[in-house]
């Protein structure tokens, strides 16, 4: 495109810049500006309105003394670890099963992915009903004659996070499955021939040859899923509203409630800054690795 660069560069730049203006504004004002604003004002005493009254780390000290925040953090860590492990293991296994030249492949794929088209609100509403101890799954199995059957995760303070996990995995595993399948299919067919000649069993080929070859896809999916987990909000609102008590609170809900319902902006901003930091810890090493890899070509 070097010939183009010589022809009327000023005009060319102007047009493209006008076209790219929304993007420039979004990156500078929203992604950079708003994030910086939030970080800066998290060090102030802001209550219902932002104030320029800087108080150092006071909001953070209060934040980490608040049991609701600590519970939120604990919940998101438990949810995050289990959601990552299960969605990747199940997602990969389903993808590998679908990859076995099965019949009705597209039917299975359609079934595994359809919950992903639904909102977290719908997902939460459905699973709230299914997991309802007095009328849902537990009651149904009991009414069929298994009187001692117990499945009341959603009602227990220590177990409610696993109820959220069941719903979240139902919604999101199909997404991981689709990406893993795309990854598996993009690996060279030759390795299968080679593996077969060497007499390597199928599962070993997947585990030790295909997965290492899919490193890029897996890493990217991991980052997207992890960044999504940090945002977990709608599902909790729809399914448990943070209950019983405050046992299923999550950071994103803490931010929203303190910002908009409780008029305690400082706390909301400090909490969202912690969320931002978490996401940066997840993506910076990944971006660095990917960028470095790209540079090397």
């Amino acid at each position, binding site marked *: 495109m070097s010939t183009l660069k010589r022809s009327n560069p000023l005009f*060319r*730049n102007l*047009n*493209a810049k006008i*076209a*790219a203006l*929304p*993007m420039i504004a979004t990156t500078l*004002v*929203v*992604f*950079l*500006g*708003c*994030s910086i604003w*939030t970080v800066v004002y998290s060090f102030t005493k802001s209550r219902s309105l*932002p104030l320029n009254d800087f108080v150092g780390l006071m909001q953070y000290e209060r934040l980490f003394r608040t049991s609701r925040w600590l519970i939120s953090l604990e919940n998101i860590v438990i949810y995050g670890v289990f959601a990552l492990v299960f969605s990747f293991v*199940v997602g990969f296994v389903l993808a590998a*099963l679908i990859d076995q030249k*099965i019949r009705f492949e597209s039917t*299975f794929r359609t*079934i*595994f992915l*359809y919950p992903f*088209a639904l*909102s*977290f*609100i*719908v997902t939460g*509403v*459905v699973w709230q009903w*299914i997991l*309802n101890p007095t*009328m849902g799954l537990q*009651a*149904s199995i*009991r*009414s069929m004659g298994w009187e001692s059957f117990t499945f009341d995760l959603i009602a227990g303070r220590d177990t409610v996070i696993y109820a959220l996990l069941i719903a979240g995995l*139902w919604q999101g595993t199909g997404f991981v499955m689709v*990406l893993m399948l*795309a990854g598996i299919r*993009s690996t060279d067919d030759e390795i299968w021939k080679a593996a077969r000649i060497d007499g390597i069993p199928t599962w070993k080929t997947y585990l030790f040859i295909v997965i290492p070859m899919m490193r890029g896809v897996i890493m*990217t*999916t991991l980052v*997207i899923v992890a960044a999504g987990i*940090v*945002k977990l909000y*709608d599902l909790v609102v*729809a399914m448990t509203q943070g209950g019983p008590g405050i046992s299923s609170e999550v950071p*994103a809900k803490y931010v*929203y409630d303190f*910002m908009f319902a409780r008029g305690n902006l400082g706390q909301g901003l400090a*909490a*969202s800054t912690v969320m*931002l930091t978490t996401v940066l810890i*997840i*993506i910076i090493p990944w*971006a660095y690795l*990917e960028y470095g*890899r790209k540079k090397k070509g």
Partner: protein
Amino acid sequence: MTSELLHDQQKPRTYSFDARPHEPAGAKPAKRLSPARIMIYSLLFVATLYYLLPLYVMVMTSLKGLPEIRLGNIFSPPMKLTFAPWVKAWDGACTGLYCEGLKVGFWNSIKITVPSTIVSIAVASVNGYALTNWKFKGSEVFFAILIFGSFIPYQVMLFPLVIITRELGIFGSLSGIVFIHTIFGMPILTLLFRNYFMSLPPELFKAARVDGAGFWRIFLVILVPMSLPIFAVALILQVTGIWNDFLFGLVFAGLKNFPMTVQLNNIVNATQGVKEYNVNMAAALLTGLVPLSIYFISGKLFVRGIAAGAVKG
């Protein structure tokens, strides 16, 4: 990065003049059902149950009367079929102050989704085009920040955006929510269009330049008509994404414009009154109907959209 993922989709199409590809002739060898294959199908069957049961339970519950629901078997089909819960969910369920049903939210969601989809796609497609064919100094840096920014939790930017939209006079209005959806749709859509335009042969663009076509003319007359598939992908991605949004609708749309997801949540999690599980399930199905129809109709295009989301960066 991870270009291998989209490789198959972005590969320029090669057309073969050979009408019939070389397929093996004769009858297909019969597959025998080995223990391994039985195992595969059983596992797939178990997974299918997990994925389909909630949908089944939702439909069954929505067609039963409350007395039957209280008998406590969510799996049994209705003994006495009733569509009253659907009617009530659509027309009479209480969503906060009013009891006019989900239809209000449905039309609100339409009013939000249609302009948001159009504006966000228009902005992002031009953007992707500028980033591909009209690179300027720093354009790649902005693009990198844009993609990087899509990982920032929305909560971080929520309050400053409230201030910005309030200053612009669009907070709590349809324009406000369209504005927000345009901003947050930009990273993924720009990526989608940029990747697509990059896969087109550059000669096309060069030839048009030689013929004297300018920025907008090349875009509108040459690129858009040959990019309809990617516009379809973007359309599907945006309609489902915006329809399913909850947080932005709650914060930016304003009380009278609350989208369907917010209204659904209000119906289901209302603190007063008797819990009508059948109405709740009908309401959930109604809310899920639009994205589900899009999903089942669009098939591969939907998958392509979310796969593009996975290669951001």
